[in-house]
Structures are given as C-alpha cells and as structure tokens.
C-alpha cells in the first residue's frame, strides 16, 4: 500500500489512483479535473516529467491521485519511464486509470497490454473521443471492455465529460464491486515455450523476487532483455543461472525467427493490439482534408514552414516588447505621481534613518517589481501558453531538427530551448525528454544560456528602452550564435554519439481561452510569490547599505573587474552579484544603486549594452543552479557555472573594447 494509515496525518488517504498512459493523451487534463489542481498542461509530448499528486474526496473516500509521466511501454528507457514504471510495478497503486487517446487506439493499446500483463487493477479512460470521431473513428466501448476484460469509460477531458463516471468505476474496482478479467496475452509458440521454461526456473530459484513481481512478467522481461530487471536478478545467488538460461533461449529465438527477441515480443503485442482494434472499432474515412491537416502542411512546408517559424518568433518579440513598453510608461507615470506622498508619509511616521531607509527600500522594491517586471512577464506567459497549447512546438522541433543535430542534439531539444525563454528551471527539467545522459546535460547546459523572461526584462528594460529594439534584438542574436558555437564545441568535446529523433506529432488544437488565461495567471502568480520577496529584500539591503555608506566600500573590492575590465560604473558590481538571486533583480538593484530609474543619466549606451550582455550570460539564477545540481550532479553544475561566468566576463570585456573603438 502506498498510503500512510495514520488518520491524523495530513497526507493520509484511503487509497491511491495513478494516471498512466502514452505521452500527450490528456492525463494531466484529467488530473486537473479530478483534483482541481493546476498541473501544467500543453499540446506536446513530455510536459510531465515528474509525478504530481493531489487529493479528491469522493463517496466518503479521500483518494490520492497521481499523475505519471507519459510512457510508451513498461521497459525502462528514459528517466520519466523509469519513474512511471517503478511506481506502477513496485509501489503498486490501488487502481490505475489507463488514459488512452481514442484517435490513436492501436498504439495506445500496446501500453495497455503491458499493464494487463503486469496484472494490475486498471480502468481505461478512452479520452479525446471528440478528436477520434472527427477523424472518422467509431469505437464500441462495451465491446472493447469485454475484449480487454476491464472497464472502459469514454471521456472528453477538456470539457470534463465522462470524468465522474470514470472515478466512479475506479472506486468500484477498488471496492471489488467490478471483477476484472484481464485479457491474457499470449505470444507465438516458440516465445511462449521460452517464457514457460524461464518462469518455471524463476519460480524455483527466485521466490523472493516473485513476491514483488509476477513470475511470468519477470520471464517476459528477460526475453525482452530488460537491463533493469537483469540487474535485479543478478543480485540473487542463483541469478546468474537464470540469466544464462535466458540468453540461451533468446539466442534460440534469434536462430528460429531471424529477429531479436524484443522485436518478436513487440510484433506479437502489436498484432494483438491490431486484433483488439479490429474487434471494436469502425473506421469511416472522412473524404475532405481537415483544416488541421492543411495547417500541418503549411507549417511543415520546406520553405513556408521556416518563414512562418521566423514570423512567429518575430511577432512574439514585437508583441512582448510593444505591450511591455506601453504598460511600463503607464505604470511609471502612476508611481511617479505617488512618490511625493509616500516620502512625506515615511518621514511623518519615523525619524530613524535606518527604519526610513527600510521603508523606502520596500516601497521602491514594490514599484520596481510592478513597473519593470510585470509588464513584460504577463504578455510573454500568455503567448507561451498559446504556443504550448496549439501543438506548434513539435512542428518547430521538426523544422529545427537538422540545426539541432549540428550541436549534438535533436529536434526535441528545440522545445526545451523555447521553454528556456520562459524560465530556465522547467526548461532544464524538461531536458529529461531527451534519451541519453549526454544529451540531457548538453541540453541543460545550453538551455541556461537562453535569456529567460527575467533576463529579457533586463535586456528589454535597459537596452530595448534606451537604445532601441534593434540593439535588444542584436543581443538575442549574439546569444543564439554563442549557443551554437558552444554547442558545437561541447558536442565535439563530450564523449558519446548523438541519438536520432523519434517524436510524436500531436494534431493541432485550437487553444482554449480559459486554459490559457488560467495558465498565464498561475505562472504569473508563482512568479510574483517567488520573486517579489527576493526583490523587496534585495532592495532593502541595498538601501540600508547605501545609507550607512558601506556600499562604496564593498564595491571597491571589485574595482579591477567591474571598472577596469568591463568599463562599468563601480556601483554596478553590487546588482551584478545580487542578480544571482534573480536575474531581473540586477536591473531593479541597478536603479537602486545608481539612485535613479532613469538609466540615461547614470550610464552610457555602451555601459548599458555591456551590462545587459553580462547579465544575459554570466550565471543562471540560484534556482537554476539548484536545478542543474539536482539534474546533473554537483560537478556538472559547477562546470556550467565556471564556463558561464568566465564566458560572460570575457565577452563583456571584449564587447566594451570593441564598442569603445567603434564609438
């Protein structure tokens, strides 16, 4: 049992339901429907990389709901697959809701068959019924349920249709009111014989392990050459004997069929899945080409596709910049009008210079947070949500695959890099969708160099506002060139070979306004909750330091680097260092350190450009460093840090000199 039995515990639950299935079938949507939580959803495979949990009260039960990452089979291959499989096989949730995409039933059933093989209690949610019927796929749910021997509930998760019946069925399965008669999967004669032989041997010599896993399942996994299971068996005293028997049997199968045994299993399972589909599905071909297909044709086109890709990114940049600047002007004039009153207010309530500076710090922190940060963040998150929901990201990945291969990655990495423009943390974690350790690290290493929303604030708020759009754009282009060069270099340096792309392309969807607004709202809320305390704290510290006159003292330590090498005013050293906490803090503290919101008075254009460039590259913020550490280990995180800092200083100094020469 995966639940704690102590009633007083907050996380207590009566039983657990896990949502499992292929990537991008709508597990997270169903999860959100059931729990009322807001697990990130979107139209691209691989969003959920860690399991999420929430609670549901239903019929007097408190049920724990788990959202597992999407997987295609129960053979552990990438990290998220191991997460999902370990959970299903070892922790054994009380009921598994297997979410299927009704419009791609055959492929989805491949996973279902493996769940049935593992002999776990499952209920099937036949999701995206609306998409399926649009494709001309008619599914007889009763027949399907009869064939598979488990309950099948048709659902349309986005509208919430069928969700109540689904959870009702799951509870009935838990209560034992519905008896499951799972379809027994049998393979071709020789494979079946091999499984029998292995199973008998396993029953005799590995009785400990069979408490955890069904013996037949273990035998099948050995035929499938599953490394994880092989390692587990190796640790038993008679394990070697079983492994050598397995390899002998596998060789025999190879001799007989001329194919590797895992392929044989896959062929049989797909054969069966195909039979199941034929028994319960009617295809009515719709003659006219759907709008989605036409859109797919245009956006994936050899020439048009790339034009659309660059148009979309140009448009995003323009919209974010335009709306952001407009909002900043409105908000700034509002706060400027407010300032005199607040100054009077603070000097009225206290005469203590320290308390006054703290109050001032809090006020200017909030002002800066609202006027500089929010105007760019909100429109950006809005557009990112539209992109995610529409299903365009996999198309962009398709178009950019060959470019990504140049830097040792493949198309999927392009999705992570896009997400990096939002925030480096989810982008870094998102690198788990890549298949090998090497690619994950390479992806993470390059992703942190993408200017996230916080860094965009610095670029747009400083360079964009004072030097113009083209100057800001040039920074983004320099960044892309840098990423390309670094990627190329590390691709050559890192040992190992690049892996090819195998990616599902989900159909286009019209993004729902409700989901997008919700997503934008929650992302912004997270940002505010997380960033504002740090922004305000940082400003207060700096304000107090300024009043006590230790700011200059502190900064003078860094004089050789900041003034002599980068050519920046002495006081900019402090924002650069504290910017490690959050990148946009660098800009806010810059105004604090320089004592003005009008940067024109305190900085030359060259200094603005250099400052933004250094902030863009020099170090990912604390939370990104922590993520890098967690994902790739201490050594690799440190390596990334050292590379980024030295690169930023080097390029910053170089830019300062080149620009000075040109001017």
């Amino acid at each position: 049992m995966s639940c704690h039995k102590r009633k007083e515990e907050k996380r207590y639950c009566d039983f657990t339901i896990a949502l499992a299935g292929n990537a991008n079938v709508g597990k997270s949507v169903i999860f959100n429907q059931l729990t009322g939580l807001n697990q990130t959803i979107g139209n691209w495979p691989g969003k959920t990389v860690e399991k999420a949990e929430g609670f549901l009260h239903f019929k007097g039960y408190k049920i724990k709901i788990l959202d597992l990452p999407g997987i295609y089979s129960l053979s552990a291959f990438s990290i998220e697959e191991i997460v999902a499989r370990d959970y299903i096989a070892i922790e054994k949730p009380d009921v598994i809701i297997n979410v299927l995409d009704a419009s791609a039933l055959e492929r989805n059933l491949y996973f279902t068959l493996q769940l049935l093989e593992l002999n776990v209690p499952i209920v099937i949610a036949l999701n995206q019924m609306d998409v399926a019927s649009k494709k001309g796929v008619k599914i007889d749910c009763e027949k399907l349920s009869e064939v598979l021997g488990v309950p099948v509930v048709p659902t349309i998760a986005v509208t919430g249709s069928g969700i109540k019946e689904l959870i009702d069925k799951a509870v009935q399965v838990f209560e034992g009111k519905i008896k499951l008669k799972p379809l027994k999967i049998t393979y071709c004669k020789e494979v079946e014989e091999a499984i029998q032989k292995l199973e008998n041997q396993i029953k005799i010599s590995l009785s400990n392990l069979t408490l955890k896993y069904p013996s037949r399942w273990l035998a099948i996994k050995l035929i499938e050459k599953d490394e994880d299971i092989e390692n587990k068996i190796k640790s038993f005293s008679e394990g070697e004997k079983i492994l050598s028997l397995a390899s002998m049997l596998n060789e025999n199968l190879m001799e007989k069929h001329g194919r590797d045994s895992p392929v044989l299993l896959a062929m049989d399972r797909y054969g069966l899945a195909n039979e199941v589909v034929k028994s319960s599905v009617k295809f009515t071909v719709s003659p006219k080409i759907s709008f989605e297909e036409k859109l797919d044709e245009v956006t994936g086109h050899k020439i048009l596709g790339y034009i659309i890709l660059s148009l979309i990114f140009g448009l995003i940049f323009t919209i974010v910049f335009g709306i952001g600047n407009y909002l900043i002007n409105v908000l700034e004039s509002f706060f400027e009008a407010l300032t005199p009153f607040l100054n009077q207010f603070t000097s009225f309530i206290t005469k203590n210079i320290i308390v006054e500076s703290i109050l001032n710090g809090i006020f200017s922190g909030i002002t800066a947070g609202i006027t500089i940060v929010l105007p760019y963040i909100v429109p950006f998150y809005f557009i990112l949500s539209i992109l995610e929901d529409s299903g365009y990201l996999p198309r962009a990945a398709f178009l950019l695959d060959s470019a990504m291969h140049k830097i040792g990655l493949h198309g999927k990495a392009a999705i992570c890099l896009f997400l990096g423009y939002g925030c480096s943390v989810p982008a870094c974690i998102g690198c788990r969708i890549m298949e090998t350790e090497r690619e994950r690290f390479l992806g993470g290493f390059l992703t942190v160099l993408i200017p996230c929303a916080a860094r965009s604030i610095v670029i747009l708020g400083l360079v964009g506002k004072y030097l113009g759009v083209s100057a800001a754009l040039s920074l983004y282009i320099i960044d892309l060139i840098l990423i390309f060069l670094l990627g190329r270099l590390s691709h050559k340096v890192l040992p190992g070979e690049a892996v090819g792309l195998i990616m599902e392309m989900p159909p286009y969807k019209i993004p729902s306004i409700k989901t997008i607004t919700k997503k934008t709202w929650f992302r912004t809320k997270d940002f505010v909750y997380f960033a504002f305390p740090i922004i305000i704290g940082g400003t207060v510290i700096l304000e107090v330091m300024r009043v006590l006159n230790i700011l200059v003292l502190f900064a003078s330590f860094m004089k050789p680097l900041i003034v002599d090498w980068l050519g920046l005013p002495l006081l900019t050293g402090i924002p650069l260092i504290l910017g490690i906490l959050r990148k946009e803090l660098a800009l806010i503290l810059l105004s604090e350190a320089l004592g003005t919101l009008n940067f024109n008075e305190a900085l030359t254009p060259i200094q603005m450009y250099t400052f933004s460039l250094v902030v863009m590259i020099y170090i990912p913020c604390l939370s990104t460093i922590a993520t890098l550490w967690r994902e790739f280990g201490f050594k690799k995180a440190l390596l990334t840090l050292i590379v980024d800092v030295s690169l930023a200083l080097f390029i910053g100094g170089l830019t300062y000199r080149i620009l000075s020469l040109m001017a």
Partner: protein
Amino acid sequence: MFNRLIEVLEFLATLERRGEKIELKKVAEEFNITLEEAEKIINEAIEKGFIKIDNGEMHVSNEGLTEVLKHRESYIHARYGHKTGFLGRVTRFIEGKIDNFNIHWQNKHGFNGNSLDAFYKNIQSLEGYIEETRPLTTLKEGEKAIIVYALGGKGLIKRLSEMGLTPGTEILVRRAAPFYGPIQIAVRGVSLALGRGVASKIFVKNVK
C-alpha cells in the same frame, strides 16, 4: 568476423552488375589482401558452386547470388558498423515469420478468424529477398511502404518497436524537412517525426 567469402561474393556481384569483368587483382585491391589469398577465397567459392567458369571467364552463379541475398542484412550490418555480435545469425532473416499464434484468445473472445488469417498473411508476406528493400529515406512524399526490418543498436530497435514501427507495419510518408531534416510519417494512426539518421536505418518494401 564477417564471413569474408560472402563479402567477396557481394563485391563480385556488384562488379558484374556494373558490367565489369571479375579479376583476382580487383579482389585483392578491394580487400587489401595478397593475390594468393584472393585466389584461395575464389577457389573456395568455385568449390561451393558460388562461382562458375564460363569460357574462361568467372561469373557469380545463381547459388552465389542467392547466398549473397541471404546475407544481405548482416552484410549491411557489417557495413554500417553496428557491431552487435549476431551478424552470422541474422542470416536466417528471410525465413523469419511468426509460426503459430496461440489462438487461446481467439476462441475465448470471439475474434474474427478471417482477420487473424490476414494478420498471418501480413507477417508471412515479409518473406522475400532483401534486394527489394530500401531505406525509408528513399520514399517520396505520399508514398506507402511496409517495414521489413530496422538496423541499429538495441536501444534504437526497442524505441522503434514501442512506437509501433515493427516489421510488417505499413507506413505513409507525409513530408520531409529540408537540410537533411527529419521525415514525418503516419503509422498506426499516429503522426511521427523520425530523424533522417533513424529513418535511414529502417528498411522498407513496396506495398503490393
């Protein structure tokens, strides 16, 4: 490692296809061996009946050609440098077919016997010379084909099978991205993007 005799036969067959004469010197040059060694191999081939001598000229016999075709997959394997260690054994590929499917579930769940037969037929239709197969990358947009086999490491094969790209599966090429980019295919009702490298390792044959 790989049977040198087969490799030589493959080379000789290629020469004949090009309309060139079979000469010992060419064999020695191609494989970087001495003339004596080349002669030894050729003699072995003549003994086994893979090469016949006609008017003083050497030709690859029908038996020889059959032998070449039989070993084509492992030959490609060796050429591609996938040292998976079963090169010799893969040769029985062309005999590869599913024998008797256990009909347990057929009786129990009342599947249509005809569709089952169709399934067997589908698998059995895989029989044939590898000669007819070609890499997926050679397909044009809108063309249909059936997967015969995939070459590559254990990991790749497993991933391909999981995504439904098993031997005997029909695929449709939707479009290809430029600059040696990926290929978008439709398989089992799903749209998949395959990197060009991956696609070139999948071999297909025409739909009959």
